[in-house]
């Protein structure tokens, strides 16, 4: 049964190109109704939604999908991302509401299945919250778990994300030594990564300005997960 489902997922992924036309969103939705926990189709659906700017449709779809499939960890993950995808188009206060709702869905995803991507995602999301909310330590806790997982795995290209974010989390908690240490560890595995280089080459206000800019909620966060299945 598991094998059959996996095959369906692979076939679905192979067949569905990344549509940007809003009329084609329905096709993704049909595919997801057939395979609610399909992370990749959910991801491609969201990328198409971003192109079509149909954020509310996407949120409504995942709301129904997760209600009907309360154990679909990846559906909850995509549900959370659907809120994140809407953030740049929202006003400053709505951004907070969207981000907070996204966190709730990421948490549900982790409760069902504490995967690397879910932990990384929630941990990274916490870092976008201003210091005053005191959420950076929650982000660091998730990212440390994700780091623990990836250290037991062979190095994948997407692991760079945890090195960057965990360092940012330490930096947000004013532990610059730990931040530098984890960025340096990342640089050993990914010596040519520009984002790590940028952090390691900056200090003080310059570093703050850089990270603040990276964590600017007005800028679109890249929620495309294609790296996961294209990983080397």
């Amino acid at each position, binding site marked *: 049964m598991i094998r059959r489902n996996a095959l369906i997922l692979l076939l679905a992924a192979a067949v569905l190109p990344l549509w940007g036309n809003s009329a084609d969103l329905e096709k993704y939705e049909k595919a997801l109704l057939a395979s609610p926990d399909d992370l990749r189709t959910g991801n491609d659906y969201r990328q198409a939604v971003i192109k079509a700017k149909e954020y509310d449709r996407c949120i409504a779809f995942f709301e129904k999908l997760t209600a009907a499939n309360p154990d679909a960890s990846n559906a909850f993950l995509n549900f959370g991302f659907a809120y994140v995808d809407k953030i740049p188009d929202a006003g400053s206060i709505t951004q907070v509401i969207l981000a907070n709702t996204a966190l709730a869905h990421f948490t549900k995803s982790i409760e069902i299945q504490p995967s690397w991507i879910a932990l990384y995602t929630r941990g990274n999301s916490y870092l976008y919250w201003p210091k*005053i909310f005191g959420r950076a330590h929650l982000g660091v806790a998730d990212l440390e778990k994700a780091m623990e997982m990836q250290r037991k795995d062979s190095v994948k290209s997407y692991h760079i994300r945890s090195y960057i974010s965990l360092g940012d989390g330490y930096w947000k908690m004013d532990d610059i030594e730990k931040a530098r240490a984890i960025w340096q560890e990342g640089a050993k595995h990914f010596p040519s990564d520009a984002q790590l280089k940028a952090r390691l080459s900056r200090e003080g206000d310059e570093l703050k300005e850089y990270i603040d800019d990276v964590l600017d909620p007005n800028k679109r966060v890249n929620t495309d997960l294609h790296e996961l299945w294209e990983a080397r």
Partner: protein
Amino acid sequence: MRRPLLFGGGCVVFFTAALLFAATADRWFEDVTKNAGVAFPHTNRSFENKYAHIMEGYTALGAAAAVADYNGDGFDDVFVTDSKDGGKNRLYRNNGDFSFTDVAEQAGVADGNDANNASAYALWFDMNNNGRPDLFVVRFGQNLLYENLGNGRFRDITAKAGLTRYMNAISAIAFDYDRDGRLDLFVGSYFQPVNLFNPDTPRFFPESFETANNGGGLTVFRNNGDGTFTDATKKAGFELAGWTLDIGHADADNDGDEDLYLAADFGTDRFFINNGDGTFTDITETAIGIDSKKGMNVDWGDFDGDGLLDIYVTNITDDYMREGNFLWRNNGPDDKGLLSFNDVSRETGTFNTGWGWAGKFLDYDNDGLLDIYVVNGWVSASEESYVPDIFEMVTRPGIDFADARNWPPMGKKSLSGYQKKRMFHNEGNGGFRDHAARHGIDSTRDGRGIAVADFDNDGRLDMFVTNANAEPYLYRNTIPLGTSRNWVQFHLEGTKSNRQAVGAQIRVRAGGRQQLSFVNGGNGFASQSMQRVHFGLGTAAQLESVEVRWPSGARQTFPNLPVNRIHKIVEGGNPLAFDAKAQK
């Protein structure tokens, strides 16, 4: 043993003194507030109703200053508002030596605050074209109109003028929108017209943080020319219910009539084009787009010298809310006549001014380029922040924001407090650089208004800065004048046009460059700057030409006027020397 020690000590003293001298010499504003006699502090209104826990924090407004030469002695005076119950508003008469005397009581304009009204702003405008600026006091509650009697006294003519109305207003400007030669009043209101001091409903707070439409909107009072005004809001094309914080006018498309930008808190700023027939059209979507920010200030100036007036709007930028300001660069009308603006605040470096309030264009160093001074900060109180409280409310599902009972008490907590003011110096390369700290004008009080004026008529622009719940600042400009900092000012007087000449544009050509400015009718949050039009000229020692375009449509051009002086021009006449006793 002693000698080296003494020598060393002397060296330290000398070095320190040298540093101090260097710092002072490099600092071009001097805080003269106390010596000038204008240090009376503003006090926020306290409330005693059941929403008092939230009301004081959310009405921490009302520290305003309005500049005009009310007694015609050639020196600009300042009217300054207080907000506490029983608090006296001040009319600081300029003594001509950078000292001021509060004459509000004698003049009959001191009593603007009582149990049912709190002063929020003030505007000078010559309502009857008699050459004497009259005073409009804008209040949470009912506004007041004082007629300037010309003998140092004023008379309350609010009722006679037909302006008695509960409005909860926060801003006002006066310009001649229908070009009939009379100044009309545009009044922006923040709250709906509920009695804030004893509300009969709890639902008088903004219904949304981004699209609120339950505020006070905009009211247009058309000047009938007989001492009365008529509400012409709908007829002029306005039906707004936003939380207006500021309004600003200028001729954006150089077609001879005044257009309007409205900055709204909790929602969309609006841009209206004047149709030239006494009506306006809302062209927000095509001109500036729909925003959801917290617009606080509107000022107009041609910062890039392209002959089109641009707009500066402050919003909120902090760790928890990164809206950024707008510096709307005017693109002018396109081939189809459609006017549009681009926000260039990020690339010019004027994006982040914290929780911004007034932001004024001024050429403080007379280099011929418009700089921008911005004041900021909402409530500076204890170290504890109000941000988590407000966000706890914001993220509560199904919350009714309009209900004041749902808003958490502010107590002594701070919200975007202790923010440093900015003086963006126009670098002439498309960018600005903050010079506030260098000039000692980067205070952390909760700034509200910036009235720019040349209080001693010396060709250097001074600033009267109002602060909520604190003393104001009077900054005297001490920039070393000389051949590289020439200047000129124009005092215009309309004959066919409104006498105050509001809306008149002046284009000066000097040193091969053209500059554009205009007489504005009170633009900028919580502050009205001087009516005279000032130009910094840099090294230009002569004005090649000066063109005045009057609101009546008449144009006059004057070649070869001398620099470093104030010229008075009466519509249709030749330039005159400004009052000699007042001109240094």
